[in-house]
């Protein structure tokens, strides 16, 4: 219990630093911005209570905001992503629910399940984030294209990372 708690706290900070130092510097022609740090919310255990899920997501978002001078935007997106997560998990659950002791991992549920689950969560996050950044609907399809492309890119990174680092 304590060990996994420590593991999550370390990955919380590791992902924030990775995002700030590496992924914020990747920008393909202003179109594709990967936001890899949302992996933290994707990997939280199934049993995480609702309030803890929302609070950690909010804190994660606001920490990234502080470093990118976009106070509130990532926080809003992460909070929304955390809010939608239980619903997504319920729709994708196996017939007799998730076994106790399992985690939302690629190694346990397979590539197809994990990719679907992760992509939808990443999509909601990017949707809220990019439209908050634009703050208007007049360039709706342009922003939507950015959302789709960035979702694909972040999704690729997330899935690939599962094969290397975050296996457990």
């Amino acid at each position, binding site marked *: 219990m304590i060990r996994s708690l420590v593991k999550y706290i370390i990955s919380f900070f590791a992902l924030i630093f990775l995002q700030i130092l590496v992924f914020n510097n990747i920008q393909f022609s202003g179109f594709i911005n990967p936001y890899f740090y949302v992996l933290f919310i994707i990997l939280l255990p199934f049993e995480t209570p*609702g*309030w803890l899920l*929302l*609070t950690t997501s*909010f804190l994660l*978002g*606001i920490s990234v*905001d502080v470093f990118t001078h*976009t*106070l*509130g*935007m990532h*926080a*809003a997106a992460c*909070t*929304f992503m*955390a*809010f939608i997560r*239980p619903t997504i998990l319920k729709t994708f659950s196996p017939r007799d629910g998730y076994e106790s002791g399992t985690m939302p991992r690629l190694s346990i549920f397979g590539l197809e399940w994990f990719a679907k689950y992760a992509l939808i969560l990443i999509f909601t996050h990017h949707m809220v984030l990019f439209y*908050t950044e634009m*703050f*208007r609907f007049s360039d709706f399809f342009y922003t939507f294209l950015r959302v789709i492309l960035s979702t694909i890119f972040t999704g690729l990174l997330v899935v690939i990372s599962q094969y290397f680092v975050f296996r457990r």
Partner: protein
Amino acid sequence: MRNLLRIIINNQFLLLFLIFEILSYSFVVRNNNYQQGRYYNVSQNLHGYFSRKKEKFFQYLSLREINLELADENAKLKNQLEQLKLTTPTKLISIKDTTHKQMYSYITAKVVNNSVNKQYNYLMVDKGSLDSIKPEMAVISPNGVVGIVESVTDHYALIISLLNRNLKVSAKIKKNNYFGAFEWSGTSYNKGHLTDIPLHVKLEKGDTIITSGYSATFPEGVLLGYITDFSDPGGNFFNIDLEISNDFKKLNYVYIVTCFRKEEQKKLELKAKQ
């Protein structure tokens, strides 16, 4: 009470989510320049839209009064015209005076926003720079002085109301031409003060106060108010209380005054100062 508590506990996930989202978006709007600008832009547009709708509705209700007011003014103007016909020798009209120019012209405008209950009141009218309204123009109504244009946008102009403690108007007593400064009392929308009238002037309650025309903003002789009370505070000048002739609570149409010779007068005044 117990039910309310139960509802809160049952929906704690949703409520917490809403709290975090509201918090986030208040951060967004407060700390990011671009989003802040968009937010104020949209909210200002909405405010303008709704106050225009409201104004339209209430204007309809007060049509009768506006009609009476306009009829009154018409009658007044007609009377003046008749007097002019009598007093102006017909010969004068035939003289061609190339240097003669009209001194003032008037543009009608409708009040769309107004306040009377602050210390620094402003009002807004529906004419702007596209109607050649410029800052520092005078604003009057059939009943007297309204204020001075402070700033303009394409379709609107912001006017410093006479009921604003920053505004002073050069005024004089109609019967003997002694001049002073008019300022609002700051307490009630129909009370003002007249200052700088020396003690030897003979005053009476009910004397009419008009604009002096010295500042070249207001034409001479626009009604300001009537003396209700005066006292000697011990000094060189009277303390004079006025009743403002204009009823700022039912202001509807106003005239914006263009003074064609203002630049000329200002230039000369500047020279005199040097």
